[in-house]
C-alpha cells in the first residue's frame, strides 16, 4: 500500500500545475482510466485465478475485490494517472523548448 501511495503522490500533486490542463479533460481522464481498469483488471483477475502470479498476504490489506487485493485494483487507477500526467508533462516541456 505504501509503495502505491508514494508512486502516486508526486504526480498527483504536480498534476494541479495549471498549464498542463489535465482536469479540463476530466471526462477523458475518467474514461481512459476506467477502460484500463476494466481491461487490465480482468487480465489480473484471470491471471490470479490461473495462478500466473500471487501476492504475499502479509504485504497487502485483507480487503479484496474479486480475487485481487485492493492495492492491486488501485494500481490500475494510479498508474494510468501517472502515465497521463507524465505524457502531458513531456508534451508541455516540448512545446516550451520549441
Amino acid at each position: 500500500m505504501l509503495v502505491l501511495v508514494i508512486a502516486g503522490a508526486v504526480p498527483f500533486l504536480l498534476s494541479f500545475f495549471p498549464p498542463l490542463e489535465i482536469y479540463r479533460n476530466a471526462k477523458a481522464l475518467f474514461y481512459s482510466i476506467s477502460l484500463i481498469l476494466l481491461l487490465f483488471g480482468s487480465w489480473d483477475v484471470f491471471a490470479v485465478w490461473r495462478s500466473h502470479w500471487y501476492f504475499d498476504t502479509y504485504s497487502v490489506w485483507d480487503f479484496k475485490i474479486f480475487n485481487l487485493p485492493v492495492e492491486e485494483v488501485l494500481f490500475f487507477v494510479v498508474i494510468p494517472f501517472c502515465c497521463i500526467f507524465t505524457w502531458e508533462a513531456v508534451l508541455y516541456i516540448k512545446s516550451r523548448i520549441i
Partner: protein
Amino acid sequence: MKEYAILGVISVCAAIFLDWGLQTNVLRRGEFYVFLIIILGFKLLVNGYLTGKNIVMYNPHFLLGQRIGSIPIEDFLFGFSMVTLTIVFWQTFKERPARRRPLP
C-alpha cells in the same frame, strides 16, 4: 503452457493495432519514446521492489524464465501495452471534439 508470455505478446499486438486503428499514432511520435523511458525508469524501481521483496510472486510454469533483475520479461510486455493503451485512450478521448450544442 507459457500463458503469461502468450498473453503478453497478444496485448502488445493489440496495443499497436489500436494505436493504428484509432489513428492516435502515438508510436510514431518522438515524445512517446521520451515518455516511455521515463516510465521505464519508474517501472524498474517499483516493479523491481515488488518482485525483489517477493510481494508479488510468479508461478514459473507460466513464464519463459528470463528476468531482468528480479522482474520477469513478461512484465515488460504487460507494462508496455498498459502504458501505451493508456495514452492511446487518453489521446482518443482528449482529441474528440466537444459535441456541438444547438443554437438557441
